[in-house]
């Protein structure tokens, strides 16, 4: 039986003393106990570490396997208000879906009033609406039924930042694509057909990767394994790339850019690509650090290039 004392990482004040803690208690359980004495700090916003400036301990870590004496001293940092990943994803994806539709249906006060509730005469505009909507419906369904999240929560301020990004860009793109003065692609049907093929191919690819990643991880677990190609040909890209979900996502948006021939769409694709490259490089690096036998042929996001 051990004791646990929790100090504030900045001020070193004694915040809590827990006596008679089981040696096999997890950090998660200790967080729950701490929460009881400080109800404003729910477990998700607690960062518990051995060293005031050190890394956070994981919820799964067990007390007796940590380098502490009979009385364990932990340091606490408040991570700030937290919000669940699922909530953030649902909000940031529902926005573009609805916003785009508002522009598509030419809701009043967006374009000149004579265009209210009219529809575009270009069939590519209808196609684009279907593709854009399909994309975000897919994302919403994946959030609810496919993804297995490592972290439960993220800081609350992220939802404002993320929603501004997604909703802002969606409105900007949708405004031009559904504009009464929209100009369809230069190469007409050929361009649109090619664009649609690229888009659909990459949507299926992206979905395949999400399923493959989900299957790597048993339900409720947070294990990490190296992803490998499966029977599904869309996953064979794992041979060359660490994060093919991002590769396919880039492909989808390139397809959509080609389909709509719209500069704001190109801008959105570019910004997204930059962000996904940063994420892919980070993920690739952590794969390399964690797994000695990580395949050397793989690049983070673009085969052989990036």
């Amino acid at each position, binding site marked *: 039986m051990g004791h646990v004392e929790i100090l504030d990482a900045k001020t070193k004040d004694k915040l809590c003393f827990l006596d008679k803690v089981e040696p096999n208690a997890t950090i998660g359980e200790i967080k729950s106990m701490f929460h009881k004495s400080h109800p404003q700090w729910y477990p998700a916003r607690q960062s518990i570490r051995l060293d005031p400036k050190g890394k956070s301990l994981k919820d799964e870590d067990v007390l007796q396997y940590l380098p502490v004496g009979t009385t364990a001293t932990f340091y606490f940092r408040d991570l700030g208000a937290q919000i669940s990943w699922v909530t953030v994803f649902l909000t940031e994806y529902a926005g573009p879906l609805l916003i785009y539709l508002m522009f598509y249906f030419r809701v009043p006060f967006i374009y000149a009033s004579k265009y209210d509730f009219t529809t575009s005469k270009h069939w590519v505009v209808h196609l684009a609406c279907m593709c854009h909507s399909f994309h975000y419906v897919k994302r919403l369904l994946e959030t609810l039924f496919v993804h297995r999240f490592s972290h439960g929560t993220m800081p609350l301020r992220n939802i404002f930042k993320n929603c501004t990004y997604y909703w802002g860009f969606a409105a900007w793109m949708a405004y*031009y694509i559904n504009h009464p003065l929209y100009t369809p692609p*230069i190469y007409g049907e050929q361009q649109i057909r090619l664009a649609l093929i690229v888009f659909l191919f990459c949507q299926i690819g992206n979905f395949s990767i999400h399923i493959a990643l989900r299957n790597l991880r048993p339900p409720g677990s947070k294990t990490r394994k190296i992803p490998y190609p499966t029977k599904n040909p869309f996953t064979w890209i794992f041979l060359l790339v660490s994060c093919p979900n991002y590769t396919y996502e880039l492909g989808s948006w390139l397809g959509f850019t080609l389909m709509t*021939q719209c500069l*704001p769409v190109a801008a959105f694709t570019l910004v997204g690509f930059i962000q996904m490259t940063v994420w892919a490089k980070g993920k690739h690096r952590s794969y390399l650090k964690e797994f000695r036998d990580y395949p050397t042929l793989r690049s983070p996001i673009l085969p052989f290039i990036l």
Partner: protein
Amino acid sequence: MSAPAMGTSKTAHTDSSNKKKKGPGTLAIAYLVIYNVVMTAGWLVIAVGLVRAYLARGSYHGLYYSIEKPLKFFQTGALLEILHCAVGIVPSSVVLTGFQVMSRVFLTWAVTHSVREVQSEDSVLLFVVAWTVTEIIRYSFYTFSLLNHLPYLIKWARYTFFVVLYPMGVAGELLTIYAALPYVQKTGLYSITLPNNYNFSFDYHTFLILIMHHVFSKLFPQLYFHMIRQRKKVLGHVEEYSKVE
């Protein structure tokens, strides 16, 4: 916009020699000294140009034309400072420096140069004077800091003059943009209209209005109060020391 880039380097210039081991080498320091001396001289030329033109004409209207070329040259030259940060010979943030230099360059070229009609406005003189005094002090501050012989007067001036110069400069800049608005709207300057093959549009007139709002409501108050805090930090110590002595 006319911010003397205080927020970026903070007090790093005087500290850089003792704190950072991995700082600029001797060649870099020599280059920076030359750069800052040249810039100080350049802005002095502009200052002298303004005074001479004023004395010659007997009025302060339309002085912009007398210093138009050196103003463009030396203000645009400041773009090098972004490079200095990127390469690491100056310990400031690339983003912050970039932002500040670009805002000056924007005002010089995309507003004052591009909209001829505002060049005779008095608001132009307002920001040109603010910039000139600020830059003379700022570049001499850097020069002396690099040579490790910073007269207290220059340090004091750098952290005090902004109290008047910064609002003065911002006022001049905003009034100039405001004066440009009708001409921009009439001529459709730098604007793209629909329909076009890229399905994109840009209204420079609206853009300028948004910039004015952003500068006035957010940027200027934020930067101004940051500099006031910097002033307390930098000049505050000295007052304590003099009390002890």
